[in-house]
């Protein structure tokens, strides 16, 4: 059964489609700059900086301990994991889980996040729905079932209209997600206008454990280090080195850049 193609008034294109793109884009840019202004300075304490570096050092010891002599490796492993006074065994940090109740700054961060992202989207979505109502804006290029009609065709009471024809509100939401790549082009990667990225972060943030628990991190490192053995990378270095001639190409054949003066 052939679907009769609707021909839309070209005024719709001029006065609806384009303005909505424009509005969405501008709102996104404004959101980006507002988020920069509202950004609270995350000041790390000395202890946090120190602890994170210690954890890195332990990891490096596990990964690259093979480049230092065995004694040196064992000495460091002992320092960290020793039963009586090893660093990881002994050090307990006071950990305050940063939930919204106990940490006021978390609360304000959440509020700011909501204000800059969710609120404008709802407001503008509603405004667009009210302003640009009563007509069909565009057609999505793929067929949709009738279930989508009430969602995408708000304000258009036509029972026989193909669900692919959508209202301006739907076009607005399409833009919010579609302009994401435009934002990264113009505002750079880590921009505050990227709606979908923010929502992704909110979802994954709830799922993963708070990373600030230093004690757990220490325990994990202790275990990992216990399991690490020393496999000296230099065991057969002479044989490896002397298996072939040295590559002396280009030695002394060009002027080397000078030093300080």
């Amino acid at each position: 059964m052939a679907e009769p193609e609707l021909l839309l008034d070209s005024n719709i294109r001029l006065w609806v489609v384009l303005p909505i793109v424009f509005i969405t884009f501008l709102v996104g840019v404004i959101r980006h700059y507002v988020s920069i202004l509202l950004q609270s300075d995350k000041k790390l304490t000395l202890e946090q900086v120190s602890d994170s570096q210690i954890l890195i050092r332990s990891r490096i010891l596990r990964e690259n301990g093979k480049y230092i002599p065995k004694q040196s490796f064992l000495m460091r492993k002992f320092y960290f994991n020793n039963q009586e006074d090893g660093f990881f065994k002994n050090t307990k940090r006071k950990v305050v889980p940063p939930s919204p109740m106990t940490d006021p700054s978390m609360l304000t961060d959440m509020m700011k996040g909501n204000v800059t992202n969710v609120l404008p989207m709802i407001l503008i979505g509603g405004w667009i729905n009210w302003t640009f109502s009563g007509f069909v804006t565009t057609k999505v290029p793929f067929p949709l079932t009738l279930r989508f009609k009430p969602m995408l065709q708000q304000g258009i009471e036509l029972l026989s209209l193909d669900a692919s024809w959508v209202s301006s509100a739907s076009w607005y939401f399409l833009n919010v997600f579609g302009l994401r790549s435009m934002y990264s082009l113009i505002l750079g990667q880590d921009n505050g206008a990227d709606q979908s990225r923010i929502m992704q972060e909110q979802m994954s943030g709830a799922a993963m454990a708070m990373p600030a628990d230093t004690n757990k991190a220490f325990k994990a490192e202790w275990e990992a280090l216990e399991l690490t053995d020393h496999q000296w990378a230099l065991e057969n270095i002479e044989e490896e080195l002397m298996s072939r001639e040295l590559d002396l190409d280009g030695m002394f054949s060009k002027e080397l850049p000078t030093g300080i003066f």
Partner: protein
Amino acid sequence: GHYCLDINVLIIVFTEMRDKLRKWREDNHRNSEQIVDVGEELINEHASKLGDDIWIIYEQVMIAALDCSRDDLAWTCLQELKKQFPGSQRVKRLAGMRLEALEKYEDASKQYDSILQDDPTNTAARKRKISILKAQGKSAEAIRELNEYLEQFVGDQEAWHELSELYINEHDYGKAAFCLEELMMTNPHNHLYCEQYAEVKYTQGGLENLELSRKYFAQALKLNNGNMRALFGLYMSASHIAASPKVNATVKKANVKYAAWATNQINRAYQVTKTNQLPVEELLLRSS
């Protein structure tokens, strides 16, 4: 040598000058006299064309000017930076460095203390204070402060290297070796750290340390075939071990072999440099 100023630098177009400065900045070169010449001209003649780059150039030129005892130029740069970034800790640190260059160590130290009051995690200010101790010749104090610093900032590689140098100056080779081990772990592909470690081990002496030193000279060579110092070190450590009365025959034989190999490579290197072109035999060997 090339230590006299390269006249061509002055005639080069503005963009080349700016790009040269950027390259030196990114590669952390300390060719201060060149930086002063290029930077001064850039600032005096082409300030308007630089845009926002000018601030980081002021910083770069100022530090170079301090190296060359050009306090007039350093002062000018500092004033411009102070005007643009009042209350900035980064600028405060530069002011402190100028005071250090003028040997006003008390004032410089006060400057750094004020930075640390606002921001106790500011590593730059703490390190400058340690540099003051070093400049005043107070090695023991500098070592102590640097150790305390490293307890808090265990990942600061620049600090580990500085500490290793201080220990070497005090002939405390065991502790210097510890510092170099930290650096070897964080930079496993850096042949210079391996070579320095080997030299420290060689200096400590004793059979076990000589073995370690030979191994680490070899590692340095493996990472960089052209490290002549490591090649000589390999030869010397192997020869020493071979000549020691405490080793058994197998070990002696192995070390003689290593020393011979090293000698061979040294001769090859000097053949190549002597004529600055490959000897005929090498060409023949290569083509076969």
